């Protein structure tokens, strides 16, 4: 049921873009203290780079087309020993996140069942993708979740469900590792500001960003994506 032709087109297009890509994202040294707070003045010292976004083509014939409502994401990087903090900032006029009661019981017993409030809402989310083995590299893994020879790691943040570290070596191979990582987020005046705390990686490591807009029913491969960038 997947649109093979579209996907092939997309691969070709992103391949070209990846080769043409010259941008790098500077990494600013910082103290570990407070870097996780997206409103911290520390972030004023980190040079922002705006990454252009595209939407993935419709993967399923039943998908409704989606407009390019978000055209770019601003990325900043801070480094201190042991960590790199990534701060993402993007325009999103609707905040799609929910505070869910914890699911504690698989059966009712004596307590009142915690309800599912909605069945049809999706969350805003973002992710940073790095090669599984970080370090300076001239080779970018395939944008579609890497490939067999170039696996990737994904630091995924979801406005409702929090963070998850994932691994993949190609499309449809993505899986959760069970690990989480620290993050903080603020949504203010039509803007998401999210910081992710990643393990330190060396200069020259490629990095790509993806965004999901809950309002557009984004999830899975239905998303916004940047091409690979190099970190300085």
């Amino acid at each position, binding site marked *: 049921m997947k649109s093979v032709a579209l996907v092939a087109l997309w691969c070709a297009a992103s391949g070209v873009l990846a080769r043409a890509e010259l941008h790098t994202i500077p990494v600013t040294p910082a103290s570990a203290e407070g870097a996780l707070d997206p409103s911290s003045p520390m972030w004023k010292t980190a040079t922002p780079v705006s990454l252009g976004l595209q939407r993935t083509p419709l993967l399923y014939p039943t998908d409704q087309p989606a407009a390019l409502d978000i055209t770019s994401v601003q990325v900043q990087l801070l480094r201190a020993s042991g960590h790199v903090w990534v701060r993402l900032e993007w325009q999103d006029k609707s905040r799609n996140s929910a505070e869910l009661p914890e699911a504690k*019981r698989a059966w009712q017993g004596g307590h009142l069942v915690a309800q*599912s409030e*909605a069945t049809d809402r999706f969350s805003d989310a973002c992710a940073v993708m790095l090669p599984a083995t970080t370090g300076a590299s001239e080779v970018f893994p395939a944008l579609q979740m890497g490939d067999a020879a170039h696996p990737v790691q994904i630091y995924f943040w979801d406005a409702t469900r929090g963070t998850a570290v994932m691994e993949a070596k190609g499309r449809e191979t993505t899986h959760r590792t069970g690990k989480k990582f620290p993050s903080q987020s603020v949504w203010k005046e039509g803007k998401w500001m999210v910081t992710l705390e990643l393990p330190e990686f060396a200069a020259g490591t490629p990095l790509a960003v993806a965004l999901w807009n809950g309002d557009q029913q984004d999830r899975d491969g239905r998303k916004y994506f940047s091409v690979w960038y190099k970190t300085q």
Partner: protein
Amino acid sequence: MSIHQISMVLDLNKCLGCQTCTMACKKLWTDGDGMDYMYWNNVETRPGQGYPRNWDKIGGGFENGRLRPSDIPTKEDYGQTFEYNYSERLFEGGLQAMPHQEVRNTPNWDEDVGSLMLGENYYFYLPRICNHCTNPACLAACPRNAIYKREEDGIVLVDQERCEGYRYCMRACPYKKIYFNELLGKAQKCIFCYPRIEKGEVNACAKQCPGRLRFVGYLDDPNSAVHKLVHVYKVALGLFPEKGTGPNVFYVPPFNPPRKGNYGKSILEDPRMPIDYLVYLFGEQVTDVIRRLEGELQKAQNGGSSEVLQLLIGRDASVRYQIPKREELIHIQGAKKA
């Protein structure tokens, strides 16, 4: 496609609309957190909007081999889950027990609102579970390969580990029989009571049914009641065959007596239930099925005996259910299974 297929046949002429099956299922499988609105087994009044509201018109299924678009039903489409002001009524002098919120929809709304059609009163109950389809649209739509159909019995399950809650399956299922547990972020659905089936025990909904209208067994077991009703006597049909999923739950259509006590006339000539409506639900074949059932009825009324009607009476569990235990299954199903 699975090697073997377990199946259920429901005789709609016998359903009381008591919802015992619904409760049996709810207490056994869907009384956990996030499952409040889910009825893996539901019973809806027909004609009517059904559960979730207008599920038969939302979309899904296949068209020319491709998945058809569909929306995701909203929580209100499934029906609200509300509490009553019992303590106010009982202890604070309240006049009436009322729900805490305005009620706009419930899982069987048509039963709750009713409507009077003078001289034209007809309705029947349609109990529904997942159809454990031969060609499941839910499975075809899942990009995570989280949905699988078991080879040994054709039961369709969602791997709760692999599921990421994307809900492509909810859109794809033309019967809207996959639900979303928002608290867990997982799709959940009828599991055909597989832990019971594996032990040779029938599904909870069938076990509890006072109408004794459910038949359960392997479609490919020539000795099973389901095989006979579907393939030999040909008196049971799947719901909405044109949706292209090959449902494995079958219904004996309602063939109520003619209106106004007009015996002697054919049910098809003077139907109580508009035949168009039955064709809408079960396809063109429904008229043949009703003709066949009517023939059997006449046979019995003329003093003869009808094997089909005897079977449909379903006197006891051994008549209705043929569910070999796993170990026995290997013998019955032969080397292919082993």
